[in-house]
């Protein structure tokens, strides 16, 4: 009883120490690695928003509010992403990233691709408001095209 009790206390104590150490580590993370984890979380959010639209298109029933919300997520998050590729946030940052060195060596093209995505996402917001499945499908393809063309150049294919 006492042994198991002190054991569980010890385990509890160690877990607390681990949690503390991890959070300290997180606070101490470099701006570059924070940029990487933030933009990765954002890309996931965008992927999820794309899937919302894709699922609606596949089922053939468009829910206008959901479609508009998803499109807005894409446009807003896309804008945030443009600022989340600071110098030094490539492979050298020590956090696993699929961003290729070309992002920084070919910056003007990369920024142009980002702008193209944002422009298409803005159009998608407008089109989603119509609730027209064909139009949303066409604009969804246009947005997806900008994802793909940028990824082809600037994201490791794995």
């Amino acid at each position, binding site marked *: 009883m006492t042994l198991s009790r002190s054991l569980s206390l010890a385990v509890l104590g160690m877990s607390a120490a681990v949690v503390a150490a991890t959070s300290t580590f997180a606070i101490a993370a470099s701006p570059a690695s924070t940029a990487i984890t933030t933009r990765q979380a954002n890309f996931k959010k965008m992927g999820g928003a794309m899937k919302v639209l894709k699922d609606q298109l596949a089922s053939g029933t468009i829910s206008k509010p959901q479609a508009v919300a998803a499109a807005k997520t894409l446009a807003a998050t896309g804008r945030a992403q443009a600022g989340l590729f600071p110098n030094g946030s490539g492979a050298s940052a020590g956090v696993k990233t699929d961003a290729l060195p070309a992002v920084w060596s070919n910056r003007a093209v990369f920024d142009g691709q980002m702008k193209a995505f944002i422009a298409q996402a803005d159009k998608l917001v407008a089109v989603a408001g119509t609730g027209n499945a064909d139009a949303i499908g066409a604009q969804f393809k246009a947005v*997806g095209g900008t994802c793909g063309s940028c990824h082809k150049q600037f994201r490791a294919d794995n």
Partner: protein
Amino acid sequence: MAASTTRIWDPTVRLFHWLLVALIAFSWWSGEQHDMERHRLSGYAILALLVFRVFWGFAGPRTARFGSFVRAPGAVIAYIKGLGSRKSHAANGHNPLGGWSVVAMLAVIGLMVVAGLFSVDVDGFESGPLADYVSFDQGRSAAQLHETVFNAILALVALHVVAVAFYLVWKRQNLVRPMITGSRKTAEGESAADLRWSPVLAIVGIAIGVGVAWAVSTGFRF
């Protein structure tokens, strides 16, 4: 008729085999090219093949039936013990070890197809026909599984090719020709059982395979 032959593989099994070879190669290629439209079509065709083959495992001729080629461990061990001998033996369909290789192959390719059906690409742009039944994260996990399982397929294919080469070099038995022509030479005085199969059942099996693949390809929305 000088050398007599006997049929060991019916036409549908041979067609299944070579179509599967071609489609797996094409699936790999189209996947690498990110040609997802064709990649999906190729996957549906493989699904149709798998469903047919499972059906044929119960309704086909003796060399196609699971009941005849999936053997007990004892038979497998006895077969492995005889592998070192250079004496060839009558290949009346799958050998006891090869039978399990067929089961493994069907299981792994089946897992590959199922994972693909639920897969979502990193952009949330391309996806399998059943991806809307799962979340984005689950779809991404399915895609990762889809990639991992491909290695298992490659390993089984490599093992298969090595085994066929082993038979050719060590036992001086050509296993490829029967898979093309359907027949093998018989030894002198050997009387092999004939291969009986029903074309009607074959058509039924093909129809089931195509039907299932089509239903899945629509995401079960008719």
